């Protein structure tokens, strides 16, 4: 009786087990404290969250194989500097001791106050296989712009 149960369990595991054995992957933002990452994706997985420095995604089951880690990057420091340069943030200026100096007049049409998230990917290619658990750290020396992102329209 037990033997028969074990056989049935084995058959069931074999049937449903293909995706249970998929590798698990988590990604950590190890860039710097001013950089946020969002929409991190790797080999069929996507994490629709924003990662501050040091934060990690939850583990997800991804497809076995190889890929780069893709994500969108927002550099808060660079954004603030741009906004200060454009004089869009009251009370902030480019350097200390410059109180009273007015920001240069810039054509309002050229000023972009919306934060821009740029598409990036890791330079290195990561490999994962069935049963693996991998934690990938995103570091500044291993990222490049990602021009492979598909366009928004299809149908």
């Amino acid at each position: 009786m037990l033997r028969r149960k074990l056989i049935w369990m084995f058959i069931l595991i074999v049937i449903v087990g293909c995706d249970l054995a998929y590798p698990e992957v988590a990604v950590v933002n190890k860039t710097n404290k001013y950089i946020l990452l969002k929409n991190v994706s790797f080999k069929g997985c996507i994490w629709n969250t924003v990662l501050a420095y040091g934060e990690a995604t939850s583990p997800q089951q991804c497809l076995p194989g190889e890929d780069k880690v893709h994500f969108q990057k927002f550099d808060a420091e660079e954004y603030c500097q741009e906004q200060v340069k454009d004089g869009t943030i009251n009370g902030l200026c480019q350097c200390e001791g410059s109180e009273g100096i007015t920001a240069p007049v810039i054509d309002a049409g050229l000023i972009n106050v919306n934060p821009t998230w740029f598409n990036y990917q890791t330079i290195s290619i990561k490999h994962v296989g069935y049963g693996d658990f991998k934690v990938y750290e995103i570091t500044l020396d291993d990222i490049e712009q990602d021009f492979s992102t598909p366009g928004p329209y299809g149908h």
Partner: protein
Amino acid sequence: MGIKRSGWIIAGIALGLLIWISGPAGAEEVPAPAVPPAEGQGSGFAGVKSAEYPEGGTAAPTGKIIEKNPDVGEPSIEVEILGRKPISKDKTEDSTQVSGQKLRDSPRPSTLEALSQEAADVYVSGRGAMHGVSSGASGGIHIRGFGGSPNSQVLMVEDGVPDYQGIFGHPIPDAYVPFLIDEVLVIKGGDSVLYGTNAMGGAILIRNRWREREGYEFLDDSAFGSYSTLRESLSMLGRSGPWDTAAAFTALSTQGHRKGMDGDETIGEAAVQYRRPDYLLAIRDKLVHLDGADPGPATHPTPDHRFDVWRNNASINITKDTESVHLTAIPYINFGVHRLYDGFYSRDYVGGGKAEADWKIRRSVEALIGLATEQVEGKVKNRISDEKSPVKGSNNTSLYHQLSLWPVGPITLVLGAREFWSSKYGFAFLYKAGGRWEITDGLFLRARVARNFRQPTIRELYLPFPTANPALKPEFSRNWDFGGGWESGRLEISCMGYVSEADNLIKYFGVWPSAEVVNIDHITIPGVEASVGLKRLGPVSLFITGDWQDIGRYTRQNPDGKLDFTLEAGKDFSEHFLGGSLSGEWVHGLYMADYSRQPINDVFTMDLAFRYRYDLRERGLTLEPYLFLRNFLDRKYAYIKDYPMPGFNILIGLKMEI
């Protein structure tokens, strides 16, 4: 001396093997159905598969052919041949005929992929369990260089009704389930003369089943497999007096092998037929519901790109037979509602009808004349922004005719023309001419040329997904093919050369927001397709089909070469049957972009299928458990770049037939 002797021995063995292979298959061979002279052709395995996998009394007679003894002075003998008319109306076309049973037994995940396994010059992309719709969808059908995405150069015709969406101009690849299919004919080289717009590269004719004996039969097929895949199909065929009924329900639910590949597919079909000796009235309706997503490239997944599609096809088929004339009238309507994740909402319909007379003027002359009309309409809006896209429908009417001649016993000639008038594009003249010579019993040569046509779709003309061009002109193709073959009891071999030419082909270039869709100049695609089949070598049969083509510069999703093979074995042990198959596909020269850019690694995958059938005759019940081991080598491959196909996966099922 030793070498000489062994050479003779080898030659003797080879000669003996050749005689054995080319000889009749013996007592186990199922005789081919009786057909009039020169009927039932098609390259390779046309007809043979039907004979090899008889439908077990599911094909109902839909007509009769009356042959009279032509010799004057002898008593006239009237032979009435009851049976379905051949699905092929052109005896000279190059085609592959596949039985519904073959499709039902196939381990491939969809009907179109199962068809692709049978003919190497038919390429169908895949992405997993379901093909889906909109961006990221697979299931584009290529035949001899034409077709694909947009998949509107190959026409699907189900029970005489052209099946395509009004706005996007292509069929829904997930809408074809094999449980009611009697047989499928893949016409290579197109036939716009008989089937109208879209039959540019080919036409795929589907004929559905009816029961031919009094009584009822039920087939239940339940399967469970990897990725939490559940498939349930229930079909029923019945005959009671002059009434025939057919119904099928199929539901598929899967989590998919990756995020966004989950989905549900529900298809219901019902048909009723009233049959009298000289006329027949059939009504059929098919309802399809698809709920899924575009998973996006694995590098940049988009599992939230959901779609929800409803489609309904309804048709009425009226036929009347006199002694020499077979009349058919088919009104139909195909309508659907599509909803996409980004607010896209469309309603469309294709409605029309055709009337056709097939007239056997003399024993050696048969004429076909038909009148067809069709209206295409659609409405598109964005439900989020409430922005409406201005689209204009179109209608067309055409007169078509075909003459089949048998001037000398073994020679068949077919000439045809279609005068096509479109409300948007005016008049177009389409033609075809073909010949077939049965040199000896089983040995044949054939050649055919056909001028085919496709008018731009509403999407290509008006919808900015990714771009539109209202100035587009219709596409024209001229397809030549020629070749021969030999069919005997155990060996079938055929080889066809072809040249597919096209003018004004519609192609998309670039990506949004700078994409364009334009007519391109003349293109020529030469190719060669061959197949070899060894049947019933003991319990084993082997079928190999290969295709090579010089696709030229427009390489997007259009492979250079393809090879398919199927090795089958099966043995009956009284009421038990044990069988299995090993099948594989190799696709070479795939690119994701034109001009040989973005190459994709060659596809190579193999599937295993095992089945056991137990026939409980006293209870009228057949039980058939089966096991599919798909991609059992766990190959990592993709037809579409960054849309990886599933690794090794399993489907276990049980068929019950009452």
